[in-house]
């Protein structure tokens, strides 16, 4: 599934196109989405893109499942905001635009320190140790209020030092472009990393940690260096978010944040380099928009995650790549109609299920407001049997239709894959 840039040099035209498009997208996005909410969200997306890509250096490329990776972005945030306050106080002469780098160095420092222990093991022990280290740091955040700011956290002001050509980073848009530059450069650096000897040996250690010891490599060193690199980029993300929010509280090192990185990196797709970018965009959409839309957003998120793990363990990125493959063999047309059926029936089922979920949530949390609620424009009454019956019928019909569509889809998908395989073999034989 992983496409290998065979004999091609480090750069070719297709790659320029992709990276140019990526840069252009970040350049133009705030001009298309102009509201202050969308500028804020775009800024957060940039930050979480760096964090999820850095997280995936371990998960996807190194097979290391870290349950406590917010430690490094979080500690990077704290280092950055302390540095920012020094700049404001005049005791540190550093342009604000370099504060994220300070966060990066902070992340690197703590990754070097804590990772030395963590990376002694791989696999499940590695995951356990990261969990322990994460809890440790979260507990320490309450023990050292001087550094972590206690309950209130540490505040800062990003308008500090001398403005550079009139850039103060006061307006959100100016900060967005700083974040965009960091995001682009970090993405490029992390992609470049995957093309280096160490990056490839990291893949090899994911596949077979034992064998690389017999071709001259110390597996632990490979893991440790990768862990530090990941910590550095996590720290940069942390530093950027310190500038973005101008406040850092102890929850940035917490388990919930670590879990979010894991969940969305996986959703986006850990198998492909660009997967976490999709995941990061979803992360911000879910945290900002979905949580506004419904109180039950964590439940929906859990459902989506469960479905993904079961049916598409390669994440959204792998779904995209599989369909691109089908398209490149000119067979996507056959699938359009089945896809539409799957989508519609899934939506019907989802509408029924979510109507029920919303009614339950309404009964539990908003009882004082009475039994009536509005869900997606439809008035529902959580105490009346007709609303429940309607939702139930919707769910039942949706599930039934989905199952019918799925039964027609699966053999078709299998046949198309077989056709593609035999086509590939024919081409190989001809070559």
């Amino acid at each position, binding site marked *: *599934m*992983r496409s*290998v*840039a*065979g004999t*091609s*040099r*480090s750069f070719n035209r297709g790659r320029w196109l992709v990276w140019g498009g990526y840069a252009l997208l970040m350049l133009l996005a705030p001009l298309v989405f102009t509201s202050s909410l969308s500028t804020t969200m775009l800024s957060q997306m940039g930050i979480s893109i760096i964090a999820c890509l850095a997280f995936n250096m371990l998960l996807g490329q190194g097979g290391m499942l870290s349950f406590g990776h917010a430690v490094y972005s979080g500690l990077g945030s704290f280092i950055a905001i302390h540095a920012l306050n020094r700049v404001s106080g005049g005791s540190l002469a550093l342009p604000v635009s370099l504060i994220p780098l300070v966060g990066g160095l902070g992340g690197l420092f703590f990754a070097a320190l804590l990772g030395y222990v963590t990376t002694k093991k791989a696999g499940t022990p590695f995951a356990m140790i990261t969990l322990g280290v994460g809890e440790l740091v979260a507990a320490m955040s309450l023990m050292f209020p001087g550094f972590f700011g206690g309950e209130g956290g540490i505040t800062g002001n990003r308008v500090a030092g001398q403005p550079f050509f009139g850039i103060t980073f006061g307006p959100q848009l100016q900060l967005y472009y700083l974040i965009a530059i960091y995001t682009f450069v970090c993405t490029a650096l992390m992609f*470049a*990393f995957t*093309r*280096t*000897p*160490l*990056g*490839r*040996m990291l*893949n*090899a250690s*994911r*596949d*077979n940690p*034992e*064998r*690389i*010891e*017999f*071709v*001259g*490599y*110390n597996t632990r*060193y*490979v893991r440790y*260096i990768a862990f530090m*690199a990941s910590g550095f980029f996590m720290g940069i993300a942390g530093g950027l978010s310190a500038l973005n929010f101008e406040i850092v509280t102890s929850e940035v090192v917490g388990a919930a944040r670590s879990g979010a990185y894991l969940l969305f990196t996986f959703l986006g797709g850990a198998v492909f380099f660009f997967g976490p970018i999709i995941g990061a965009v979803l992360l911000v959409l879910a945290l900002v928009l979905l949580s506004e839309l419904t109180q039950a957003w964590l439940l929906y998120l859990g459902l989506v995650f469960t479905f993904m793990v079961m049916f598409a363990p390669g994440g959204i990125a792998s779904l995209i790549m599989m369909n691109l493959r089908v398209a490149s063999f000119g067979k996507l047309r056959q699938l359009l109609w089945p896809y539409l059926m799957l989508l519609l029936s899934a939506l019907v089922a989802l509408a029924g299920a979510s109507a029920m979920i919303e009614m339950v949530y309404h009964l539990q949390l908003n009882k004082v407001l009475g039994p009536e609620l509005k869900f997606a424009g439809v008035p529902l009454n959580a105490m009346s049997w007709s609303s429940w019956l309607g939702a139930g019928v919707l769910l039942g019909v949706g599930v039934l239709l989905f199952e019918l569509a799925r039964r027609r889809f699966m053999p078709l998908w299998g046949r198309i894959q077989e056709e593609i395989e035999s086509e590939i073999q024919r081409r*190989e034989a001809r070559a």
Partner: protein
Amino acid sequence: MTAAAPAIELRDVRKSFGRTEIIRGANLAVQPGERVAVIGPNGAGKSTLFNLISGRFGSSGGEILLHGQRIDGLKPYEINRLGLARSFQVSNLFTRLSAFENIRCSVLWSMGYKYSFWHFLADLDDVNRRAEDVLGMIRLDRRRDVLAMNLTYAEQRALEIGITIAGGASVILLDEPTAGMSKSETSNFVSLIREVTVGKTLLTVEHDMGVVFGLADKIAVLVYGEVIAFDEPEAVRTNPRVQEAYLGSAHADAGAQSGGH
């Protein structure tokens, strides 16, 4: 260290698992360039011996020397850097990487790129040429971009050998290289192994007597964790201790029929 130090020397090597002693004072001296097959009944400790030499397990006693230098107690990667490479009985590949990448991973250290993250792989002409060469030698050049896990069994065995020799180690240990192969595959494979190990010191564990006589100049017979004979095939075959302990007198001429043991 003398000029004529053996490539591999075992001096009273011992290994116990719990209270069970598997290797009970093995002695062996393989000269540079020699091609040795280690044979012995099941449970004689052949694979254990390889695991001790390559550093996969630590030994419980005795000394292991590579070109006169002590290597017992060293880690596998330290031993590999001194010029010893091994293959595994069960293919031990980088499953989600292509055949080419498998080989490339195996030449990086020996060509000095180590933990570099300041080189692009695509620009390493020496590495890429070497990897292509090895891929050609093991006849997988047409399967270059296929993931290791999608190769056929015989191709995986060839890749296993490729990973082992790619780094250019002078001492090669092959643990049952032809295990699980059909007869015709085996004979092709034996000539392939001969080709890729020209000029190297070769130690191989093997069950198939045809392969043993096809590959080795000398045979070491391991029984109950001791090397009871180490000589040319003909002398080993007529050695009464070997006949008694291992082949059994009825199977004394098993080699001629290239039967199993």
